[in-house]
Every structure is written in structure tokens, then in C-alpha cells.
């Protein structure tokens, strides 16, 4: 299809379904002058080749911090991993040396950031930044790198790539910039891409285009994709499974359709209710009452309890475990978990 493939080790690609990344019981803290903020409190999720995991949550839920810890780009003071493992192809990255992690970064696991304008270097041409991956990691010459850059730009459908390869980031529109970022991320055909709010800064129509592109490329290269977002609308088309995060914890996981159809956690329910719908015309919009918690002082028990309509005394004292969700007959529903004492009532009504 495209020559970008030629250089990559095709025999290294995993079968669809083999786990690529497993985050196990990850705990990350920040030591600030006001105290210790517990940003990530026991997160577990995994992604397999060809699979898309959507991580959903508001600001402060810990979704970005988890992603950055996986990439290894979190600032380590004041951040600190206090517990857990991050397994990439079975090996714990947290135990690797800095140099080993650096070699994985960009080449095997790549990241796409939210604001492409600030994430791209303003004084270097787009072609340079795209070609850098090839020059640094594969020893390509300047000419070769430039050709590859043009190929990549073509691949992500930037018109007139050859003429625009020497242009600078500020000369492109928002949507095109985001596509350049995507191109940069997949230039060396990584196993896994982490997209941190890739469409939040874009218009709705452009959002759809970018998400389509992402899905297409993922299928082509059989990559795993972790899509971090707070926007439920974006996720529906692209994700295979969803993990909902709140206050540094996963509160629900489910395959995508089941989450929308039958949520098993009050928070998820609240999020779904908050999406404005056409048939609500004339009515007041719903919003979950209250605000996300201060990470320096997380509420006792279930962190969501102050905002929950159905909270009980148990909720206020005991942190719920991530229960396996079953159907009405007690049969376990695969891939479904809920961190709620009242998950049964929430799910089954």
C-alpha cells in the first residue's frame, strides 16, 4: 500500500487480540507544597492489538496522568509512582532503565496530544518534525526523511504535501495540524497509540474526519488505541470498550454498546443523562450536581458519594471494589465491571 510499511518489522506484529499493554493497580501521587495529591488510585486496564479502549472522565479524573505515566513523560518530581505495574508485551516498563523506555517511546508506543498548535515546535518546519523520527531512530538521511515526511502527509490526506512539507505549524488549519500530529505518531508504526483528547480543540465536523482517519489507520496497521476523552459522543463510533474514570479510579468498564444501553454505575448514568438530546427541546438540561473532588482531600468511601443520588451509608464509609457485573440470572457479563456497592440496582433498575 504505502512504502512506509516496508521498513518495519512486519513479522513483529502481534495477532489481533494479544494483549499489548496492561496497566495493573497503578498508583500515582503528586507531592505539592499544599500536600499529597492522589491522582491515580489503583487503575487497571488493558489494550490488545487492533483494539480501541476509550478512557472517559472529567478533568481531574486521572486519565491523562495515567497516560503520561505509561509513556514515561510525567515529571517525576513532583509525580511519583507508588505502586503498580505497566506491562508492555509482558514486560514491566516501570522496572526498565530510562534508556530502554526511551527506545519504546515514539517507536513502539506513541502519543497524540490535544492542542496540536502548542504540541508542535513552532520554529521547525512540519517536514523536519515528521522526518525527525526517521533520522533519529532509523538513521535516515535528510533527503530520505523528507520523502517519508511527504508520504506521511499524503497518507493523512494533507493536500499538496510536497509543496507544504517546508511549511510551519502555524500555517496549517487546526484539523490539518492534528493530522500532522497523527502522522508523526504513527510514522514508525507503533504497536500502540495513546490519543489524549485528540479532538477536543476541533470543530465538530473536523472532529469526525480526524476520528475516521484514526480508525482507518488503526485498522490498517493493526494498532492498539487508547482514546482519552471526556466526550461521550466522540467515543461511540470508534471504541471497542470503555473505562470510566473518576477521582483516579476506574468506576466502570464495559463494551461500548452495553455501556450506553445499560450503565452499571450512577456516575456513568449521570454522564449519559447530561448529553443534550434533540427530544429534550424546551426542558432544562441535566447536570450531575456538585464538582469533582479535590485530589488532596478525596472523600472517604466511594469518591463519588457526595454527588450521588442513591448514596447510602456504606458508600460513605467503604471504598467499593471493582465488582464483576452479572446479568439478572447471575451470569457474568464479560468485560463488565462496576465499582459501586449498588451496581445491581443501578443496572437492573
Amino acid at each position, binding site marked *: 500500500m504505502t512504502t512506509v510499511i516496508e521498513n518495519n518489522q512486519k513479522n513483529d506484529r502481534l495477532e489481533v487480540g494479544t494483549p499489548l499493554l496492561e496497566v495493573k493497580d497503578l498508583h500515582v501521587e503528586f507531592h505539592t507544597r499544599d500536600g499529597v495529591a492522589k491522582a491515580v488510585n489503583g487503575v487497571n486496564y488493558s489494550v490488545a492489538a487492533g483494539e480501541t479502549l476509550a478512557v472517559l472522565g472529567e478533568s481531574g479524573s486521572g486519565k491523562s496522568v495515567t497516560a503520561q505515566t505509561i509513556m514515561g513523560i510525567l515529571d517525576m518530581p513532583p509525580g511519583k509512582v507508588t505502586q503498580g505495574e505497566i506491562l508492555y508485551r509482558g514486560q514491566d516498563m516501570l522496572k526498565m532503565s530510562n534508556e530502554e523506555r526511551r527506545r519504546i*517511546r*515514539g517507536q513502539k508506543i*506513541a502519543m497524540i496530544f490535544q492542542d496540536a498548535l502548542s*504540541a*508542535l515546535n*513552532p*520554529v521547525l518546519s512540519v517536514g523536519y518534525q515528521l522526518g525527525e523520527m526517521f533520522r533519529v531512530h532509523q538513521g535516515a538521511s535528510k533527503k530520505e526523511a523528507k520523502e517519508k515526511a511527504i508520504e506521511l502527509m499524503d497518507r493523512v490526506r494533507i493536500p499538496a504535501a510536497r509543496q507544504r512539507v517546508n511549511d*510551519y505549524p502555524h*500555517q496549517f488549519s487546526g484539523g490539518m495540524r492534528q493530522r500532522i500530529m497523527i502522522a508523526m505518531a504513527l510514522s514508525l508504526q507503533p504497536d500502540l497509540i495513546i490519543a489524549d483528547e485528540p479532538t477536543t480543540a476541533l470543530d465538530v465536523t473536523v472532529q469526525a474526519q480526524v476520528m475516521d482517519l484514526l480508525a482507518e489507520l488503526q485498522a490498517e496497521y493493526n494498532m492498539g488505541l487508547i482514546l482519552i476523552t471526556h466526550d461521550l459522543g466522540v467515543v461511540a463510533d470508534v471504541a471497542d470498550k470503555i473505562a470510566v474514570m473518576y477521582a483516579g479510579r476506574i468506576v466502570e468498564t464495559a463494551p461500548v454498546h452495553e455501556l450506553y444501553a445499560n450503565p452499571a454505575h450512577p456516575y456513568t448514568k449521570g454522564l449519559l443523562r447530561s448529553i443534550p438530546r434533540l427530544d429534550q427541546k424546551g426542558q432544562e438540561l441535566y447536570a450531575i450536581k456538585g464538582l469533582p473532588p479535590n485530589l488532596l482531600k478525596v472523600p472517604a468511601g466511594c469518591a463519588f458519594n457526595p454527588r450521588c443520588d442513591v448514596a447510602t451509608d456504606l458508600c460513605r464509609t467503604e471504598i467499593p471494589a471493582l465488582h464483576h457485573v452479572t446479568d439478572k440470572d447471575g451470569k457474568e457479563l464479560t468485560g463488565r465491571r462496576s465499582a459501586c456497592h449498588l451496581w445491581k440496582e443501578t443496572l437492573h433498575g
Partner: protein
Amino acid sequence: MGRFVARRLLQMIPVFFGTTALIFFMVHALPGDPVAAMWGDKAPDPVQVAALKHQMGFDKPLIQQYLDYMGKLLTGDFGTGLDQRPVIDKITEALPVTIRLALFAFAIEIVLGVAIGLFAGLRRGKAFDKGALVVTLLLISIPVPVLGFIFQTVFGQNLKWVTPTVQNSEDITQLVLPAVVLGSLSLAYVARLTRTSIAENIKADYVRTAVAKGLPRRKVIGTHLLRNSMIPVVTFLGTDLGALMGGAIVTEGIFNVTGVGNALFKAINMKEGATVSGFVAFLVLVYLAAGLIVDLLYAVLDPRIRYA
């Protein structure tokens, strides 16, 4: 880009005329009669004074004098001093020394300043950074005369590493001390500017992206961080070269360097209007040229302003 250059050049013209006019009028508004002063302590003969004045054109209205002056200037004639020597000769006499000194100081301030600033910025809050801040603060605070004397006494007389004053300005080793003194203030500014710029830019998103791309550290710093951080520093350096050439009066005085600053100082004291105007016009040209080069460099470094 061409339009940018053209625009800048056009801007320079009124400024050049404005500054030279300003200097001309400032100088010639000086009370005191330089022609009469040529007689020294003796009483000047009014007739001879008048004759000389007429010969030198001092009795024409000031505006006329200015126009004559500008006219000559545009043909490269910087005027004649009271001793009948063309000012341009005096300039070319004093210039090489000043250029040597200024370039030397410039090199010191760039190399040391950027290096110190880079390390301090990367290790912000740590020992080197704090030390660098203190040292640069001292260099900024201690006025040039004081610094000059300290260096001269300590390194020239006490430790005898270099000659205390410059005997032969062709010998570059003798220029070390004045170059260091001249460059020290600017070095401090360059170091601080670099440090702040680096410390700020290191938090930038594009640096995070560079790290996320798995680039080795020296590439992240050398290519991505430095290119962005150098922009304000280059701007400062540009205006500094002009200042170094014109403002070295004190340093030249202490170390006995017969450069432009020295000549200018003498001319001002002797109220030699033509000489002063000539010298300053020349310096203004240098200053404007340096400013233009800086703006061009700025456009090269930061593509965003090329298309503004």
C-alpha cells in the same frame, strides 16, 4: 521576507535622520565657544575668531549648518574637526581598536553567557543555578568603573596575570582584561535571559512532544529547546553590539585603550561639535545596522513573524 526587509530598511531612514539631527542640535546648542577656546588661556582676538568661524561655517544659521552637515554626510564626509583633520580619519584611527575590543567582549559574553544560562536553566533551583544568579547579580550591580578597578587591581597588579593597562592595542592578549570588564555586564544579562528562556520553554508542550517521540535528551535540548529559547537572547545581543562599540568610554579610560570611546570623550570635553557629531553619526549607523541584522535574524529564527 523581502517585504519584511524592505519595510525595515525604510523605517531606518527617518530614524537615522532624526537621530543625527538630534545629536547635531544637542552638540551645537552647547554654550561655550570652541573656537575661542582654541586660544587656550590667552585672550582671543575677536577678528581672528570671527574669521575662523566664517571659514568653518560657524556663523551660518544652525539649520543651514545642519543641512550642510547632512549633505556632506551623505557623501561620506563626516566633517572636519577643529584641528582641521577630517573626522573620518579620526574614526578610522580609533575604530580598529574598538572593533577588536568590542568583538572580543561580544565573543566572551555569547559563549560564556549562553553556556551559563543553559546550565542554570536546565538545573533550575539547584546549586549551579543559584550560584549563577548570585554571580550575575553582582556583575550587574557593580558599576563598570568599580568592576574595572577591581579587575585591574586584582588581575593586573596583584596577580600580574595580564598587564594592567594596554600598551599595545594590536596585541590581543593585552585586551583580555578590558574585554572581560566590558563584556561582563552584558554577560550577566545574556546568562539571565538564556536561563529564564530555557526555564520557561522547558515546560512547553512541544518539548513534551519531543520527549514523547523518544528523542535523546541532547536532541531535545539542542534542537527543540535551544532554537526557541535563543530568540529573546539574539534580540538582546543585537542591540548590545552597538552599545559595546559606543559605550566603552569608561573601560577604555581605565585601561588606556585608544578607541572610539576615548576619542569621543575627549571631543566632547573640548566641545568639538563637528567631531562629536561625526563620531556619533557613525555610531548611530552601526547601531541601526546591528538592529537591522537582529531583526533579520529574528525573522530567520522565528518563522511566525516572517508572515505576520
